[in-house]
């Protein structure tokens, strides 16, 4: 049928255009970062020095910072967003309470990230600092030579408050609404007859969730979480307010650090030296690639899980 053909062609064209869009972005980023490629080559990836005055640039501290904050945020957010999606998707599906809760969650997705940043800075960071002071206090009181003392010593706590942990916390708060509302949507779409069949066999609600709903909606839930991770990776304003913006490599989650996105937002508006500008854009390009790899891993995980069934 002619209409069917037109319909299919249109879809194909749209999808192709989408592909071209991505390709265009990719090529633009490469062209704009060319001077920095020529200067540093691939060593850009493992150099740890970022010195705009001397024009020495390396991206490793930011790659580490990005991965640390995003994954910690993801682990922190997963149990909460899962619970919320089960709660809204299965336990409390209708009524005023549901509407308020769901509306409220979607509302939160629209708060500008700079406000999360301010809130994190003035409310969350002092709490973390209090916690760090408590740890220092604890170290003073523990017996010398004990394991706890060595552990606390190894953490090298300086009570800044700001740092990777603070950034991960604020990120997880920001992405909960995303993950939860997509999760809720897919959970509520699990066919009623499947659930009813399980109930009629005498399954409890927990068992229905575990054996019917979760397997059915798993890919959607994971997709929601990865979507949230995408936001976490690219988040700038909120992170930059609480991470301490120190461009030095660190693995300690209590230390200040910096992420790729936050670095770009910090330095791009003022960068004027061509090589500085190119290096910043190259960081953007690598963020693109890091996101790609993480998504690929996510895909593999989902694929493995479905395969095992």
């Amino acid at each position: 049928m002619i209409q069917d053909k037109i319909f299919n062609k249109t879809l194909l064209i749209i999808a192709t255009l989408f592909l071209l869009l991505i390709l265009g972005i990719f090529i633009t980023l490469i062209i704009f970062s060319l001077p920095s490629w020529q200067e540093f080559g691939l060593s850009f990836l493992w150099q740890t020095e970022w010195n705009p005055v001397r024009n020495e640039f390396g991206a490793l501290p930011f790659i580490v910072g990005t991965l640390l904050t995003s994954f910690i945020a993801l682990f922190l957010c997963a149990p909460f967003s899962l619970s919320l999606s089960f709660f809204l998707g299965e336990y409390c599906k209708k009524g005023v309470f549901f509407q308020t809760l769901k509306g409220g969650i979607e509302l939160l997705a629209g708060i500008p990230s700079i406000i999360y940043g301010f809130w994190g800075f003035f409310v969350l960071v002092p709490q973390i600092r209090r916690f760090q002071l408590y740890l220092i206090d604890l170290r003073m009181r523990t017996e010398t030579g004990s394991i706890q003392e060595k552990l606390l010593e190894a953490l090298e706590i300086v009570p800044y408050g700001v740092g990777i942990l603070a950034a991960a916390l604020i990120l997880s708060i920001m992405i909960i609404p995303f993950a939860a509302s997509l999760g809720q949507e897919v959970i509520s779409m699990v066919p009623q007859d499947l659930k009813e069949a399980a109930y009629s066999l005498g399954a409890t609600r927990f068992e229905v969730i575990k054996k019917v709903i979760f397997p059915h909606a798993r890919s959607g839930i994971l997709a929601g979480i990865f979507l949230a991770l995408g936001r976490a990776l690219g988040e700038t304003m909120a992170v930059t307010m609480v991470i301490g913006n120190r461009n030095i490599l660190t693995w300690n989650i209590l230390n200040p650090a910096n992420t790729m996105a936050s670095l770009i937002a910090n330095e791009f508006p003022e960068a004027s030296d061509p090589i500085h500008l190119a290096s910043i854009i190259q960081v953007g390009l690598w963020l693109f690639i890091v996101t790609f790899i993480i998504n690929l891993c996510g895909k593999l995980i989902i694929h493995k899980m479905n395969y095992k069934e």
Partner: protein
Amino acid sequence: MKEKNIRRRLIKDRLFLILIGVLSLTALIPLIFILGYIFRNGIRVINWDFLTQLPQPVGEETAGGIVHALVGTIIIIGLSFFLAVPFGIGTGVYLSENRNTRFSVIVRLCVDLLMGVPSIVVGIIAYAWIVRFQGFSALAGSIALSILMIPMVVRGTEETLNLIPPSYKEASLALGVPYYRTMLKVIIPSGFGGITTGVLLALARIAGETAPLLFTALGSNFLNVNIFKPMHTLPLLIYDYATSPYKEWHHIAWGASFVLVIFVLVLNIISRLVIKKWKIQF
């Protein structure tokens, strides 16, 4: 023996419910705090003038308003919506209809890729493509925002359509309905709720974006409805004013945040009404 087993299962069920409830509530606490923070600080400055006046310089008697940013936000968001939604839903439908071809696998990867691109990089792209040749304009800002929106819409559409039981499509086709009508009249409407949620989340996200607009829409302190000229939006205004030294401007920033939240709320309510009207009930 049997009874014990049942009791154990019931206890497990109850424990799970409690766990879910506690975790959900814990997740809500910071969120409620943040909303409360905005409401408390924002509601004080909201009045009719705030919504209908242009800003006044620091030190004048009246603080002025944010009408230019409000109008700009509506225009820019609306424009992005029209740019992104057909594109996004089209790609989403394509992906869910052609799940395992090599081409769709590549496209799907690209969707994921675009999702993680920081918004400021999208701003840089829009700057490189449009602003350098045409100058700053609201349109350039909308294009940047729609690039941010598309992957979320695609993802929402695809995930939702994948969950629609194949029996719907089969039933429709068996009745002799052409394929394209089946898609447009049965499958997409069935997934309307999920698709709308995806679109709404995308809209909510871009409504709060500052970074991609800084180098595209630029901003303007005057009321402007010409999409080929610079235009202000609420997040730009919040960013400018919140980082300024002056108390009066901080108040305006809080007021604007409040308005932005209400704006998202209104979007939300509208979409619920739309869903109610359009969604096919089963």
